[in-house]
């Protein structure tokens, strides 16, 4: 009897457990820190281009441009994009060399809901720069099926 009652009492608690796989602003901060290895991220030099109003979250064109001469002494080492409310905070990481010529990246991404996106660039001098954008999604990427 007691065990049954305990189970019944415990049931709502199990239902309230947060889904471990959900990204959150905190999970995004953690993912960004893993990418920057704890270094400070300054805003600027990075320009993220994405439509502020997204009709279909399944395929959202995204481009990121970093202001850099891309010479052997001064180039962009990596660009990473993060999100707040998809199941995972990470979207894409690209690694570049001076032979890429331009620090530019374009791809199509999925967005589960309206949220903030953050693009972070790592420069060859070890500094990190970022740009963030708020996007509104009317039809979400089919996470729920």
């Amino acid at each position, binding site marked *: 009897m007691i065990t049954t009652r305990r189970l019944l009492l415990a049931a709502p608690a199990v239902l309230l457990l947060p889904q471990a796989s959900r990204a959150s602003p905190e999970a995004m901060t953690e993912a960004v820190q893993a990418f920057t290895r704890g270094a400070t991220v300054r805003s600027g030099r990075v320009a993220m281009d994405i439509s502020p109003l997204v009709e279909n979250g399944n395929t959202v064109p995204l481009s990121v441009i970093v202001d850099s001469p891309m010479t052997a002494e001064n180039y962009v080492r990596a660009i990473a994009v993060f999100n707040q409310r998809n199941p995972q905070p990470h979207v894409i990481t690209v690694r570049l060399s001076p032979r890429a010529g331009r620090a530019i990246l374009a*791809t199509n991404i999925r967005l589960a809901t309206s949220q903030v996106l953050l693009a972070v660039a790592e420069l060859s001098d070890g500094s990190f720069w970022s740009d963030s954008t708020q996007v509104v999604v009317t039809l979400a990427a089919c996470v729920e099926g």
Partner: protein
Amino acid sequence: MARVLINIPAAARRGEIIPIRTLIQHTMETGYRPGADGEVLPRDIIRRFTCTYDGEEVFSAEFSPAIAANPFLSFTLVTTNSGPVVLRWEGDNGFAQTETREITVA
């Protein structure tokens, strides 16, 4: 073999910055989506893309499930010598595909 669309100029001047656009056919199953039977479909995505040219990896990318189906990527590279531009995609369930395009540099 997955179908690919690759857009690389066949000829270019030395030192020119050329755009490269690639698209590969792939479902990019996220691993969060239930199928018709209600069971969550296992993740099946392309995880890594690399572009090698003139003996060096010029560009690489790591994908998450947040990359849309049929991954599209656009980037640039500086031409140095005539030769192959090797594009390689690797992913879950042993997915691997390599495509080579020749470029003539004058």
